C-alpha cells in the first residue's frame, strides 16, 4: 500500500509541474491575444477595413450636345458591359476562359484585357465586352458563382441620334490613349471615353463633368455587399450649339452626293447656323468600333468623308476672291470705281497672254460690272495697278491666310501668298504675272469655305472682324459660360468701298446678266447678293484654247473646276452669309449658286418662322 502512496505523491508533484506548464502556455495565449487585439488592434482594424471597403469611381454622365433649338445631337445610352477585376480572379485566364463559355470573347479582346491589366492597378475593373444584350447580361448574372472577379456594369455610351448629320462638328468619343492621359481620375475608369474630334474634343473637359465616389463593402471574392457611402459627381455640362439641325439636314440633302461644303453664319454674332461637309460618316460607328473594311472605305474614299471640308478643305477661291481684290484696290485708291477697263477676252503682260473666262470679252467694264460679270481682264488691270501685297493684306484682314478661330479642331489656314512667302516656300522671286493670276483667286491662293463665309460676313456687316463659332457658349475654367455680346474689331475699311462691293454683289444676283442672276431669290425681303467662283484645277494648254476649252462635263471628276458661291442675305438688312464650295462641281453660277439660293431661302424661312413663333407665344401670354 505505501508503494501506491508514493506513486500518488509523485503523481501529484508531477501533475503540479505539468499543470504549471499548461498554465504558462495559456498565459502565452492570453499574452498573444493582448498583443494582437490591444497593442496591434489599430493596425489590424485598418487592414480589416481595407479588406472590407473598396472605393469606386462614379462616372458622371457626359454633357449632351444640343442644336440651337434644343434638339439632341449627342446623348448617352446605357451600355451593359462585362468587366473583370484582376485581383479577384484566381488567374485572369481562368476567368476569361470561364466567361468565354458564356459570351463570345475574341482573341483581340483577350489580348487587350491582358494589356490593360498590366497597365492598371489590379483592383480596377477592366472592360471585357461592351454593349451586351439583355440575354448576355442574364447569362452572366446566372453564372456569377462560376465567374470569380466578373462584374456586370452599367456604363454610358455616347450615341448620336442624327447619325451622319453634323458628324464633323460633333466629332466622336473614344478611349483615352496613353499620351492623352491627364491627372483626371475619371480616366482610370474602364471604358471611359474622351472627345476625339469636333466639339466633343474642344469642349471635352466641361462635358466630362467631375467624378463621384462610392464606397462599397465587398466580400472576399469581390462581390459588392452594400454601399456604405456615395458622393455624387457633377454631371457634365450640356453644350448648346448654334447649329440648326433642320437647316443642316436640308443643306446636307441639297449637297447630295457631291464632295462639298456649306457654311452659313450670322454676320453679326458669328453663330454658325449650318456647317455641312459631304459626304459624311456615322460617328456611332467609331464608338461601336469600326471593322477594318469600314475603315478602309472611309479613309481611302477620294471624297474624304472623314475630313470636315468646311474648315479643313483648302480650295482655290476663284472669282470669289475678286471681292478682296476690289476692296484692296478701292481702299488704296489705286483705282477709282468709275475707272473703265476694256475687255477683249484677254490681255497681254510682257510676253504672256492672260485670258478672260469669256472668250469674246466683256467690253468696257467698271467696278460694278466687273464684279457683276466677274470679268477677269478688268481684275487683271485692277491687280496690276494695286499690286498683290495690298491684296494679300486685305485678304488677311477679311479672315483668310490663317485659321478663323472657329471653335473646332483641325482648322486649316489656307494660303495667302506674298513675296516673302514665295521666297521662303518656293525660293523664287514673285513674277508680276502671278499678281494677276492670284488676284482672281487662282495660283497659290487657297481658302477654306468657312474663311469665305467669314469674308462675306465681314463685307456684309460693315467691316467688323466677326469670328465664327459653333457653340453658343464658351468655356472658362472647365465650365461653360454664355458668350457675352461680342464687340468685333473694326477692320478699318471705308463704308463707301464696302457699299460699292456689295452693290457689285447685288448686281451679280439680281441684275439680268449677272453671273448668278438665274439663281436669284425672288421672294420679297429675302433677296441675296453674292459672288460666283469657278476655280480651275488644271492647266489649259495653248492648243486646247485653240481647239476650244473643254467643258466640265467632258472632263474626269478630278479635273473639273471647283464650283464656289458666296452670298449674304437679306439684301436690305443683311443677317446671314453663306459660302458654298462644291469640289470639282463645275461652274459656280450653275452649280454652287443654286445650292446657296435654296439654302438661304430655307434659312430665312426658319428665321421668319421663329419670329412668328415668338409672336404666337406673346399672344398666348396675353390671352391668359
Amino acid at each position, binding site marked *: 500500500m505505501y508503494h501506491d502512496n508514493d506513486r500518488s505523491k509523485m503523481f501529484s508533484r508531477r501533475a503540479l509541474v505539468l499543470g504549471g506548464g499548461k498554465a504558462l502556455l495559456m498565459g502565452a495565449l492570453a499574452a498573444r491575444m493582448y498583443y494582437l487585439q490591444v497593442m496591434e488592434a489599430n493596425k489590424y482594424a485598418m487592414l480589416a477595413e481595407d479588406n472590407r471597403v473598396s472605393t469606386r469611381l462614379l462616372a458622371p454622365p457626359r454633357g449632351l450636345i444640343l442644336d440651337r433649338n434644343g434638339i439632341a445631337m449627342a446623348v448617352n445610352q446605357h451600355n451593359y458591359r462585362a468587366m473583370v477585376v484582376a485581383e479577384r480572379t484566381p488567374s485572369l485566364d481562368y476567368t476569361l476562359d470561364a466567361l468565354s463559355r458564356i459570351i463570345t470573347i475574341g482573341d483581340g479582346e483577350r489580348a487587350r484585357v491582358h494589356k490593360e491589366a498590366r497597365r492598371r492597378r489590379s483592383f480596377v475593373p477592366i472592360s471585357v465586352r461592351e454593349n451586351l444584350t439583355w440575354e448576355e447580361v442574364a447569362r452572366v448574372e446566372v453564372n456569377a458563382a462560376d465567374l470569380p472577379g466578373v462584374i456586370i456594369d452599367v456604363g454610358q455610351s455616347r450615341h448620336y441620334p442624327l447619325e451622319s448629320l453634323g458628324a464633323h462638328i460633333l466629332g466622336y468619343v473614344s478611349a483615352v490613349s496613353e499620351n492623352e492621359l491627364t491627372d483626371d481620375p475619371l480616366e482610370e475608369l474602364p471604358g471611359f471615353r474622351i472627345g476625339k474630334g469636333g466639339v466633343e474634343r474642344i469642349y471635352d473637359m466641361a462635358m466630362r463633368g467631375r467624378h463621384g465616389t462610392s464606397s462599397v463593402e465587398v*466580400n472576399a471574392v469581390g462581390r459588392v455587399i452594400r454601399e456604405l457611402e456615395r458622393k455624387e459627381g457633377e454631371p457634365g455640362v450640356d453644350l448648346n450649339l448654334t447649329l440648326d439641325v433642320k437647316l443642316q439636314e436640308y443643306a446636307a440633302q441639297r449637297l447630295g452626293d457631291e464632295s462639298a461644303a456649306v457654311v452659313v453664319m450670322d454676320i453679326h454674332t458669328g453663330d454658325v447656323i449650318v456647317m455641312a461637309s459631304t459626304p459624311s460618316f456615322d460617328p456611332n460607328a467609331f464608338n461601336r468600333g469600326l471593322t477594318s473594311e469600314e475603315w478602309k472605305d472611309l479613309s481611302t474614299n477620294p471624297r474624304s468623308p472623314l475630313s470636315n471640308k468646311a474648315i479643313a478643305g483648302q480650295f482655290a477661291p476663284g472669282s470669289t476672291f475678286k471681292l478682296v481684290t476690289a476692296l484692296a484696290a478701292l481702299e488704296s485708291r489705286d483705282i477709282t470705281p468709275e475707272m473703265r477697263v476694256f475687255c477683249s477676252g484677254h490681255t497681254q503682260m510682257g510676253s504672256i497672254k492672260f485670258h478672260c473666262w469669256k472668250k469674246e470679252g466683256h467690253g468696257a467694264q467698271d467696278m460694278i460690272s466687273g464684279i457683276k460679270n466677274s470679268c477677269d481682264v478688268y481684275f487683271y488691270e485692277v491687280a496690276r495697278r494695286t499690286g498683290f501685297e495690298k491684296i494679300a493684306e486685305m485678304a488677311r484682314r477679311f479672315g483668310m491666310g490663317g485659321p478663323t478661330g472657329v471653335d473646332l479642331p483641325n482648322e486649316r489656314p489656307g494660303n495667302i501668298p506674298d513675296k516673302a512667302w514665295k521666297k521662303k516656300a518656293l525660293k523664287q522671286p514673285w513674277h508680276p504675272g502671278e499678281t494677276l493670276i492670284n488676284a482672281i483667286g487662282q495660283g497659290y491662293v487657297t481658302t477654306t469655305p468657312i474663311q469665305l463665309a467669314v469674308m462675306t460676313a465681314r463685307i456684309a456687316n460693315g467691316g467688323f472682324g466677326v469670328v465664327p463659332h459653333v457653340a453658343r457658349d464658351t468655356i472658362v475654367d472647365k465650365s461653360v459660360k454664355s458668350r457675352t455680346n461680342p464687340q468685333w474689331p473694326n477692320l478699318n475699311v471705308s463704308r463707301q468701298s464696302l457699299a460699292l462691293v456689295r452693290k457689285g454683289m447685288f448686281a451679280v444676283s439680281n441684275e439680268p446678266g449677272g453671273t448668278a442672276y438665274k439663281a436669284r431669290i425672288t421672294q420679297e425681303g429675302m433677296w441675296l447678293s453674292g459672288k460666283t467662283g469657278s476655280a480651275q484645277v488644271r492647266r489649259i494648254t495653248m492648243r486646247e484654247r485653240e481647239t476650244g476649252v473643254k467643258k466640265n462635263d467632258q472632263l474626269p471628276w478630278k479635273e473639273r473646276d471647283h464650283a464656289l458661291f458666296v452670298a449674304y442675305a437679306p439684301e436690305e438688312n443683311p443677317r446671314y452669309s453663306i459660302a458654298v464650295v462644291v469640289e470639282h462641281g463645275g461652274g459656280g453660277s450653275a452649280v454652287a449658286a443654286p445650292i446657296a439660293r435654296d439654302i438661304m431661302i430655307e434659312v430665312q424661312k426658319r428665321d421668319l418662322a421663329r419670329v412668328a413663333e415668338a409672336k404666337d407665344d406673346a399672344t398666348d401670354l396675353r390671352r391668359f
Partner: protein
Amino acid sequence: MLRPMPRMPSRLNRTEMSVRDKIWQINWSLIAVLSAIACVGFATLYSAAQGSLDPWAMKQMVRFAIGISIMIGIALVDLRFWMRNAYIMYVIAFILLVAVELRGTIGMGAQRWIDLGFIQLQPSEIMKIALILALARYFHGAGFQEIGRPLFLIPPLIMVFAPAILVLKQPDLGTAMMLVLSSGALFFMAGVRVWKFVLVIAGGLAAIPLAWQFLREYQKKRVLIFLDPENDPLGAGYHITQSKIALGSGGMFGKGYMMGTQSRLNFLPEKQTDFIFTMFAEEWGMMGGLVLLGLYALLLAFGYAIAMRCRSQFGRLVAHGITTTFFLYFFINTAMVMGLVPVVGVPLPLISYGGTAMLSLLAGWGLVMSAYIHRDVPISRRGMGEE
C-alpha cells in the same frame, strides 16, 4: 479486535457500486462547464451561418446531446471494465487505422475516415483515447523499479509510435503530434525519469532534418509560411494573415455578435471549423477570448482535481491523459489561429463544427468522470478489485 481502518471511510470504498450510487456521484458541475463551452460553440456557429441554425448550429447541438449521453453512459461503466479492455480497444483502433491506411492507398487520396452511415468514424480520434487507456493500463501496475528499467519502456514506446507514424502517413501532422505529446505527458506522469525525456527530446531535435524529408510538400510549405507568413499573403499565408487581421481588428471588446466583418465577408477561411476561435474573438474581442480561455482552464482544473483524487494509478493516468489531450486540442488550435504555431488541422474542442472530435472528446470526458465516480475503488494490477 482491531480491523484495518479503511483509508477512505466512504461507502464508495467498495469493490462493487450500485448504479444508483454511481448516478449520485455524477459530477454535474463538470457537465455544466462542458455545456457552457459547447454553448459558446452553438452561438458562434449560429453567427457563422449569418444568424441561422442551419447548416451548423442545429446539427452540432444534436451531436452534443448524443455525446453527453454517451459520456454519462461511459462514466457509469466500471473503471475496471475499461482497464480490462484497454488493450483490446487499442488493438481494434490500430486495426481500423491500418484499414483506412490501406483503403486510402487503394482508394482516392487521403481518406481518414470510415463511413458508418450516421457518422464518419475517424480511427485516429479513437486512437487518441485508446492509446491513453492502453498506456495507463501498462503503467498502472508498474513499480518504480520497473519504470526505471529502459527495456520496460520499449513496449509503450512502440504502442505510441506505431499509430503515430501511421497517422503521420495519412498525412495528419496535427494528430500525430497530439498522440506523441499526450503520450509523453503520460510517460512523465507515470514516473519516467526526467533525464530520459531530455535524451529523447535531444534525439528528436537531432532527427528534425531527417523528419523534414518525410514531410509532404504542403506540410513543408506550411512550416515555412509559419516562419514568415507575410511572404505569401495571397497563397498559403492568406489564411493566417486573414486570421490575424480578424483577431486584431476585434480589439478589446470585439465588433459585436454577428458583426464580424472578416468572417461575414468570407475573408476568414474555415470559420466554422479550424478558425472558429478567430471568428469568436473577432466578434467578442479579447474579453470574449479570455472568458473562453477561462472556461477551458476551469475544465483543466476539474481534470486535474479528479486525477489527483483517484486512488488508482490507472484512474489518475486516464484522467490526466484525457485532460492533457483536451489541453493540446485547444492550445494547438488557438495558438495556430493566432500565428504562434504552424497551421495544422486541429479543431477547437467542443466548439468547432465536426462530429467525430466532439464524440471522442466527450467519450474521453466520460472516462474522466468514470475515474471520478470510481475514484475510491481500488484496482488490482489486473484490473480486478483489491487483491
